[in-house]
């Protein structure tokens, strides 16, 4: 018999860390950001191979902190690259696990979230495993799907969890339902996505994983396509190497050898002109994407919300604000709310308010 209620374990694997937390409702009881060193991760060829390593690290962290898992009723994993799904919460089953392991569209650390969540839930009596608002949440208007050639289609892949959580937080604090506001949300972390939220639906967003929009700490964003073709046929690079230039070793890493925006800022403050220029260029590209999304919403925008780790940098958000503040009021929500967002969604499931979807 469980005497405790609404206890939720949250697992959120990112590219270089795994966040783990225990919540009771929306109240955090324990949270740790487990940093994985580059050496630790370098030994794995594929992200999927990191499964055991990350899972065991989580288990030992929980053990070392004397976390009692018997109370846990739901394990929430961040969702990964699976087939397009509606916004909401999905119970982990074999079909979902299969797609998380063998992603139909590409590998991403967040794929491990649902897998680890399921494994942990299996070892806790009465616990269920879920993922919520994975990166493939798809609410695009059809017009946004058109690329520029019928062989290609634009896809909805973005930081749905944090974008939606922040948009809801903004709406709540202004006492309007999320389903009634138009906002542009720029999530700025290791990847950067800028979404156009129209009355609760993200009708367009740059495909932040491999190939659209602004560059970010680790990703190139859009690159000139003619030159990409030249590169692919140059014979100098493998497919994997070129894709690595786009995802993983693009953006700040390519220009400055670091994925740490704070490091870039401090270099630029110390007089490193190149660092300053690239810092400015990243903000410039984010601002351009916000401008693009402004037209997606027909210029009818209640607010622009800047969030994610990079939004901690006031210099950076100010550079964006300068260019876009005339479009709509700009609000900054620094950091990520993903753990809390997952816990909140988990609580709504446990209280019966939200029905889990089947994959």
């Amino acid at each position, binding site marked *: 018999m469980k005497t405790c209620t609404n206890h939720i374990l949250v697992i959120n694997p990112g590219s270089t860390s795994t966040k783990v937390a225990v919540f009771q409702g929306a109240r955090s009881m324990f949270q740790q950001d487990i940093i994985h060193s580059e050496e630790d991760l370098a030994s794995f060829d594929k992200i999927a191979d990191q499964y055991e390593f990350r899972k065991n690290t989580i288990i030992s962290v929980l053990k070392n902190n004397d976390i009692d898992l018997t109370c846990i009723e739901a394990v929430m994993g961040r969702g990964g690259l699976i087939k397009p799904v509606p916004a909401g919460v999905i119970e982990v089953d074999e079909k979902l696990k299969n797609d998380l392991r063998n992603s139909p569209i590409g590998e991403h650390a967040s794929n491990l979230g649902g897998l680890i969540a399921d494994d942990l839930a299996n070892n806790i009596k009465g616990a269920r495993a879920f993922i919520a608002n994975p990166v493939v949440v798809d609410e695009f208007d059809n*017009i946004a799907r058109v690329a520029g050639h019928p062989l290609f289609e634009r896809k909805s892949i973005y930081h749905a969890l944090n974008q939606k959580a922040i948009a809801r937080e903004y709406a709540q604090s202004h006492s309007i339902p999320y389903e009634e506001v138009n906002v542009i949300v720029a999530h700025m972390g290791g990847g950067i996505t800028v979404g156009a939220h129209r009355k609760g639906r993200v009708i367009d967003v740059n495909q932040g994983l491999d190939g659209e929009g602004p*560059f970010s700490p680790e990703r190139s964003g859009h690159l000139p*396509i003619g030159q990409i073709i030249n590169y692919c046929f140059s014979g100098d690079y493998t*497919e994997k190497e070129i894709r690595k230039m786009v995802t993983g070793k693009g953006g700040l890493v390519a220009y400055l050898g670091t994925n740490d925006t704070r490091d870039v800022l401090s270099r630029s403050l110390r007089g490193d002109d190149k660092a300053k220029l690239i810092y400015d260029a990243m903000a410039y590209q984010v601002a351009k994407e916000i401008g693009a999304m402004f037209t997606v919403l027909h210029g009818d925008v209640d607010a622009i919300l800047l969030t994610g780790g990079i939004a901690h940098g006031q210099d950076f958000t100010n550079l964006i604000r300068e260019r876009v503040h005339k479009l709509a009021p700009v609000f900054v929500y620094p950091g990520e709310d993903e753990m809390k967002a997952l816990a909140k969604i988990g609580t709504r499931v446990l209280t019966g308010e939200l029905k889990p979807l089947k994959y």
Partner: protein
Amino acid sequence: MNQDLILVINPRSIYTRVAIYENYNVLFLKDIMHPDQDLGRFSHYLEQVNYRRDKILSELDNNGICLDCIQAVVGRGGLMKPVKSGIYEINDAIVNDLKSAEFGDDYVNLGGILAKEIALLYPNLRSFIVDPVTVDEYHELARFTGHKDFEKKSIFHTLNQKAMAKRHAKALMRKYEEMKLIVVHLGSGISIGAHCHGSVIDANQALDGDGPFSPERTGSLPVGDLIRYCFNSGKSEAELLDMIHYRGGLFSYLGTYSALEVDAMVNNGDKKAEKVFEAMAYQVSKEIGAMFAVLNSEIDGIIITGGIANSRWFVNKIIDRVSNMGPVHVYPGVMELDSMAQITLSAIRGDEEILEYK
């Protein structure tokens, strides 16, 4: 007034547009068509130089225009080194760079080559190009892509964008150099430029880089998917470059290069045509929004120009999305020839500095 006759040459894929200007007036204008059976003999546009030159000469001859009376030949400027805006006397460096296709491989390169070829036939005949597509006034932030091995180049419809922006400024009795404008060129390629006080500080790279799709071109494609396609489709590099340059966009979806034909399809209730045409307007609007941010959300106006600006349906789809950024002005058509002739005239009269290409 014979002293100021100017021959203007603007080569297109399947025709060569030639005009004779006397002072600021068009005396003669002709699209010399190049039928498939003619062009089919050539495997590359550079092989068409003598053919197109002779076509031009005989066309002028047939119309009683004597080349002895002409002071200058001006050709459409092609893909060369990045240069500042203005008029350039054609020298060997220009011809070599256009012929080498080192800076880009497109039939627009024929303009300067043909102008020089014709000028060589007559003593004292001077040849020029004006505002080639590689005019570069980018500010430094616009050059970054997202990887150090890739640079965003300034390649767009400089000539028409600047000509229309100046015409607009003049109509308002203002100086182009004092205005902030977004100029949208809607032709077989589409470019959107952020004009800040006389300089185009950012524009989508309209040849094979980024931005909206157009009648011929794909514009941006999802980069990851493109890489997978390059390595796994079995297509050659030339086929893929051809696809993004000439067989993308409207053509790939609807089988026609003519936006006005698509406009008619939409009017006739063709749902697919409507979806694709609207998506093109959607992407153009997004690029306008991006340039709005480039200009710090402060502009004097948006100028929509080019042949597709004749489609009211299309233009209205754009206006619907961008009208609250600033006043929108529509100037259908292009004034490339007028602009080339005017600037050349000013130059040979000594009113405009002639630049040297190195």
